[in-house]
C-alpha cells in the first residue's frame, strides 16, 4: 500500500510539488503574521519565516525524497534523458532497433518452434510415461507395425505396462467419404483402439468417448472427431456428441469431440490433417491382416522405459513360441517423446545455436556502433562529470540508453516473431509438433530476457568506456585501447558470421544434393488424384470394371501422354510382403521382403519410370493372362544375383506364383535420401489386394480429367490433383526449411559483419585524416594509402576468418546427421565461405579507402 502510494507520488510529481508549494505559502503567511504581531517589520517578519522553514527549495527536495522511490525516480530521469538523446540521433536509434528487432524476432521465432517441438509437454496427460512400441525397426511401415494379437496380449500381462493401445498405421489419407448433410467430402480417419484416448489421457471436450459395445468387434459404428472437424463441419454444435455422420454410406455415432490442444497429425503424422477416429477392433479377423498397429503404451508408476523394454523382449519371445504362425515381433521400446521429435532434435538444436550466434553478432555490432558514438559524446559526458555526475551514474545512464534501444528492438522483434511463428506453424511440412508452435507467454518471457541480455550485452562496453571519461580530455592510450576493443568486436563478428556461413553452406549443399538424386521417376507434368469411390462393390469384377472405365476415359482425353493406376504413390506409405525366388531356401531372419505396389497398364509410362529389361504391363495382364510381376533392379539382384531375372518365378505364401516379365529402375520411394530397397509391381487386374487407388496422369488437363471422372460417378468426391512434384517438395520440406532459415541467419550475419568492418575502417580513416594528409603532402600517392587501408581490412577479416573457420571445423561435426552427400569438412563449402567473406570485407573496406585516396592534403591539414 505504501509502495503504491510512493509510486503514485513519483508519477504525480508535479501535482505534489504544486500542492506542497501552496501549503508552504500558507505556512509562510501564517509565520509572517505571527512575527509581525511580535513587532517585526513586514520584510523582517517574512525573512524570519523563510529562515525558520530552512529555504523553500530545500524543503521541496526533502519532501520529494521522503515521498518517492529514489531509484525509480532517477531511473525515470535517465529514461527521459535517454529518449531525448535517441531523438537527437534518430538514424542510429532506428538502425539499432531494426537489427535488434531482427535478431530478437529470429530468436523468439526459433524459441517458439523449439519450445513446441522439444521443450513443451506433449499435448497428452503425463506424456513422459508414454512409450512407443515399434516392431523390428525396418524401413517399411509393415516392418515397424505389430499384429493385433500381440497388442491384445500386452494389455494386462506386463508388470511394467499399465496400458497398451494403438492406431491402425495403414489408414489412408481421404479414405472415408462423408455424404449426407452438406457437401460430400473425403475425410481422413485414423482407426484407433477403444482405449487409445484414455491411454493418452486426452479427455474429449464434448461427449464421453466410445461405449463398451462400440469397442467390440462388429459393434455399432462410432467415431471421435477432431476439434478442427467439429468447427469446420459441425459448426461448433454443442450437441455434436451423439449426432450421426454418414461415413462410407454407414451411419456412425459421434462419440466425442477431441480438445483443440490434441493434434494427432502433429504428433504421429506431421503434415496430415486427421478428421475422425473410428474404432479399430482387436479381433481374430484384424489379426489376420498382419502387421497393422502402431503401438503406444503407458508405464506403470515406478517403472522405467528400460525395464519395460527388457520385459517386452522376454514377453515377445514367449509369444513367438505360443503363436508359431504369427509374424515376427521384435519390440523396440522408447519414450514416445523421443519417437515424436527425436528425428528433428539435432536440427532444432542447430537452429537454436544459430540464432544465438546471430544475437551475439547483433550485440557486437551495436556495441561497436555505440563505442563509436561514445567518442562523439565525449564533450557531453565531460560536462556531466564536471557538474558532479558520478561514475556509476554515467554508467547507469549509458546502460539505460542501451536497454531502451533493446526494449524497443524487442517490441519490434515480438511483432516479427508473431508473424514468423504463424507462418511456420501454418506450413505443411513433415516436421512434427511444429503446427502447434505459438507465441505464448513463455516466448514473451524469452523475448524480454533476450532484450535485457542483448541490451546489457551491447551496452556494457560503451558504458564502461564512457564512465571512465573524466572532466578533462582523454589520453592517447585510451584511444589505442578503444581501437583495440573495436577491432576485437569486428574480428568476433567476422568469426561468428563465417561459422554461420559454413554451417548453412553445408546444409544448402546437402539440400542441393538431395534434389539431385535420381528419383527413378519424372515428377514434371505428372499429377495424381484419388479415384476410389469409397463404396463397396458387389464383387471384384465390378470393382475392376469401374477402374478400367476410369482408366479408359482418362486415356481417351486429348493431350494425354500416359495414364495409369496405382495403390501407392512414392514418398508416402509403404507395405512389404515376403517375396521368395522359387527354388531357394532362406534361413530364419533372412527371408527376402519387398515393397508392394499394385499398378495398372500405363502406370510406368505415366510415372516416367525407366524399363531396363523385358516389358511393362499391358491391358492383357488380367485374370485371363499369366500371373505376372515386374521387379526393380535391387530386388532382381537380391533374388537372382548374377542371373537373368526375366522368366523367373516369385513365390508368396497363399498367392499364385508370378513370373517376372520386366525389370525397372529403382524409385526413391521411402525418402529422397534413402535407397529404394526391393520393390515389386503387381498388375491390378490380377489382384483384389489393394485399397486406395490413385490415377496418375502425364500431360492432359485437370479439368478434362475431372469431367470425365464425374461422368463416370457423379457422387465421386474428387480431391485436388496433386502434382508429383508436390510429393517431392513435401518430402524435402523439413530440409528446405532448415536450410532456408540457416541461410537467412547467415546472410543477416554477413551483412552485420560487413557493416561492422565498414564502421571500424571508416572511423579509422577519419581519425587518421591528418596523418594521411601529411603523408600525401610528403609524396605518398592516394593508391598507396588505399592499399594500406585495404590491407588493414584484410588483416581484420583474416583474423576473424581464421578463428571462425577453425571453430567451424570443430563444430560442423554436430551437423553430420543432417548432411547428405557432403562431409562436415567439405572443402568447397569452407572455400566458398572464405571467398565470400573476404570479398564482402574488401568491399566494406574499399569505400572508406577510396575516400582516403581522394583526400585533398591541403584541405585536410587546414582543418586542424
Amino acid at each position, binding site marked *: *500500500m*505504501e509502495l503504491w*502510494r*510512493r509510486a503514485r*507520488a513519483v508519477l504525480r510529481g508535479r501535482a505534489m510539488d504544486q*500542492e*506542497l508549494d*501552496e*501549503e*508552504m505559502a*500558507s*505556512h509562510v*503567511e*501564517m*509565520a509572517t*503574521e*505571527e512575527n509581525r504581531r511580535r513587532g517585526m517589520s513586514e520584510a523582517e517578519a517574512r525573512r524570519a519565516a523563510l529562515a*525558520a*522553514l*530552512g*529555504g*523553500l527549495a*530545500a*524543503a521541496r527536495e*526533502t*519532501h520529494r*525524497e*521522503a*515521498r518517492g522511490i529514489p531509484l525509480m525516480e532517477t531511473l525515470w530521469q535517465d529514461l527521459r534523458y535517454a529518449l531525448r538523446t535517441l531523438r537527437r540521433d534518430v538514424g542510429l536509434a532506428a538502425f539499432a532497433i531494426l537489427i535488434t528487432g531482427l535478431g530478437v524476432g529470429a530468436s523468439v521465432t526459433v524459441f517458439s518452434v523449439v519450445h513446441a517441438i522439444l521443450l513443451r509437454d506433449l499435448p497428452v496427460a503425463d506424456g513422459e510415461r508414454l512409450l512407443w512400441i515399434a516392431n523390428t525397426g525396418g524401413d517399411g511401415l509393415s516392418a515397424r507395425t505389430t499384429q493385433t494379437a500381440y497388442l491384445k496380449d500386452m494389455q494386462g500381462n506386463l508388470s511394467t505396462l499399465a496400458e497398451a493401445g494403438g492406431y491402425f498405421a495403414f489408414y489412408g489419407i481421404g479414405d472415408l467419404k462423408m455424404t449426407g448433410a452438406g457437401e460430400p467430402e473425403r475425410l481422413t480417419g485414423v482407426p484407433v483402439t477403444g482405449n487409445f484416448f484414455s491411454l493418452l489421457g486426452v479427455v474429449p471436450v464434448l461427449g464421453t468417448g466410445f461405449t463398451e459395445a462400440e469397442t467390440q468387434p462388429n459393434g455399432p459404428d462410432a467415431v471421435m472427431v477432431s476439434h478442427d472437424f467439429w468447427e469446420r463441419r459441425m459448426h461448433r454444435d454443442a450437441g455434436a456428441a451423439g449426432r450421426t455422420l454418414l461415413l462410407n454410406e454407414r451411419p456412425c455415432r459421434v462419440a466425442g469431440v477431441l480438445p483443440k490442444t490434441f493434434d494427432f497429425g502433429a504428433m504421429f503424422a506431421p503434415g496430415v490433417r486427421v478428421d475422425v477416429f473410428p474404432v479399430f477392433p482387436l479381433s481374430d479377423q484384424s489379426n489376420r491382416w498382419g502387421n497393422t498397429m502402431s503401438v503406444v503404451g503407458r508405464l506403470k508408476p515406478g517403472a522405467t522405459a528400460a525395464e519395460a523394454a527388457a520385459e517386452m523382449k522376454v514377453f515377445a519371445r514367449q509369444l513367438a513360441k505360443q503363436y508359431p504362425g504369427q509374424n515376427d515381433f521384435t519390440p523396440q521400446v522408447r519414450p514416445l517423446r523421443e519417437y515424436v521429435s527425436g528425428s528433428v532434435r539435432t536440427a532444432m538444436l542447430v537452429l537454436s545455436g544459430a540464432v544465438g550466434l546471430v544475437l551475439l553478432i547483433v550485440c557486437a555490432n551495436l556495441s561497436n556502433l555505440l563505442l563509436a558514438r561514445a567518442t562523439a559524446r565525449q564533450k557531453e559526458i565531460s560536462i556531466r562529470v564536471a557538474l558532479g555526475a558520478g561514475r556509476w551514474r554515467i554508467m547507469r545512464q549509458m546502460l539505460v540508453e542501451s536497454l531502451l534501444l533493446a526494449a524497443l528492438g524487442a517490441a519490434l522483434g515480438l511483432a516479427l516473431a508473431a508473424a514468423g511463428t504463424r507462418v511456420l506453424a501454418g506450413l505443411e511440412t513433415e516436421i512434427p509438433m511444429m503446427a502447434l508452435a505459438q507465441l505464448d507467454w513463455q516466448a514473451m518471457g524469452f523475448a524480454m530476457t533476450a532484450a535485457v541480455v542483448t541490451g546489457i550485452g551491447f551496452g556494457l562496453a560503451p558504458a564502461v568506456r564512457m564512465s571512465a571519461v573524466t572532466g578533462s580530455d582523454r589520453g592517447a592510450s585510451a584511444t589505442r585501447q578503444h581501437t583495440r576493443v573495436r577491432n576485437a568486436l569486428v574480428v568476433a563478428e567476422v568469426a561468428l558470421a563465417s561459422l554461420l556461413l559454413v554451417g548453412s553452406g553445408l546444409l544448402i549443399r546437402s539440400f542441393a544434393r538431395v534434389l539431385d538424386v535420381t528419383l527413378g521417376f519424372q515428377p514434371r507434368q505428372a499429377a495424381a488424384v484419388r479415384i476410389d469411390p469409397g463404396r463397396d462393390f458387389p464383387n471384384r469384377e465390378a470393382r475392376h470394371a469401374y477402374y478400367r472405365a476410369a482408366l479408359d476415359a482418362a486415356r481417351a482425353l486429348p493431350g494425354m501422354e500416359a495414364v495409369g493406376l496405382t495403390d501407392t504413390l512414392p514418398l508416402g506409405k509403404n507395405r512389404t510382403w515376403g517375396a521368395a525366388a522359387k527354388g531357394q531356401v532362406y534361413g530364419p531372419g533372412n527371408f527376402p521382403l519387398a515393397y508392394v505396389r499394385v499398378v495398372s497398364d500405363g502406370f510406368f509410362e505415366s510415372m516416367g519410370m525407366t524399363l531396363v529389361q523385358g516389358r511393362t504391363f499391358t491391358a492383357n495382364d488380367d485374370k485371363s493372362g499369366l500371373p505376372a510381376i515386374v521387379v526393380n533392379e535391387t530386388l532382381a539382384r537380391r533374388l537372382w544375383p548374377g542371373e537373368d531375372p526375366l522368366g523367373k518365378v516369385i513365390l508368396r505364401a497363399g498367392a499364385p506364383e508370378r513370373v517376372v516379365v520386366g525389370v525397372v529402375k529403382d524409385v526413391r520411394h521411402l525418402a529422397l535420401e534413402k535407397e529404394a530397397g526391393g520393390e515389386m509391381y503387381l498388375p491390378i487386374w490380377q489382384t483384389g489386394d489393394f485399397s486406395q487407388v490413385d490415377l496418375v496422369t502425364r500431360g492432359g488437363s485437370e479439368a478434362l480429367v475431372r469431367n470425365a471422372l464425374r461422368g463416370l460417378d457423379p457422387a465421386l468426391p474428387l480431391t485436388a490433383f496433386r502434382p508429383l512434384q508436390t510429393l517431392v517438395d513435401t518430402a524435402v520440406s523439413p530440409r528446405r526449411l532448415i536450410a532456408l532459415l540457416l541461410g537467412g541467419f547467415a546472410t543477416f550475419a554477413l551483412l552485420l559483419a560487413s557493416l561492422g568492418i565498414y564502421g571500424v575502417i571508416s572511423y579509422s580513416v577519419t581519425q587518421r585524416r591528418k596523418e594521411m594528409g601529411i603523408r600525401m603532402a610528403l609524396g605518398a600517392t592516394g593508391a598507396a594509402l588505399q592499399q594500406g587501408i585495404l590491407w588493414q581490412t584484410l588483416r581484420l577479416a583474416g583474423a576473424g576468418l581464421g578463428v571462425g573457420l577453425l571453430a567451424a571445423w570443430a563444430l560442423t561435426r554436430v551437423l553430420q546427421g543432417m548432411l547428405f552427400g557432403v562431409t562436415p569438412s567439405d572443402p568447397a563449402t569452407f572455400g566458398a565461405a572464405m571467398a565470400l567473406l573476404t570479398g564482402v570485407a574488401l568491399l566494406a573496406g574499399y569505400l572508406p579507402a577510396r575516400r582516403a585516396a581522394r583526400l585533398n592534403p591541403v584541405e585536410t591539414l587546414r582543418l586542424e
Partner: protein
Amino acid sequence: MSKMELLQGTLEVMVLQTLATMGALHGYGIARRIEQVSGNQVLLNQGTIYAALVRLQQRGWIAAKWGTSENNRRAKYYTITKAGTKQLAADAAYWRQLSEVMGRVLAPVEDAE
C-alpha cells in the same frame, strides 16, 4: 545552551503526539506546537515537517484535508487516523523504555567496588 538535533524518527512521533492531543492542525501549527512543548530546546527546521507529514500520510497514520484557518486562510489540516493512534501507542512505549534504559546506562556508578 545550544539547541538539540533531532534523532532519526523522533520528529514523526512528535507529530503524531501533537495531532493526538491537539486534533486537526496545519503544518505551521504542528511546527509551532512542537517548538513550544519542547521549550524551544529542539532545533526544528520547519521545512522538514512537511517531509515527515508526507511520510506519515503514505503510511496511513495521518490524513490530510484542505480547510480554512481562523484568519480565513486556506491551509491543509492533518488529523491522526486509527492506525496512527495505534502506532503512536507503540512508539511512545518504545521511547519511554528507551529513555529509561538510557537513563540507567548513563547513571553515575553508585557502589563501585
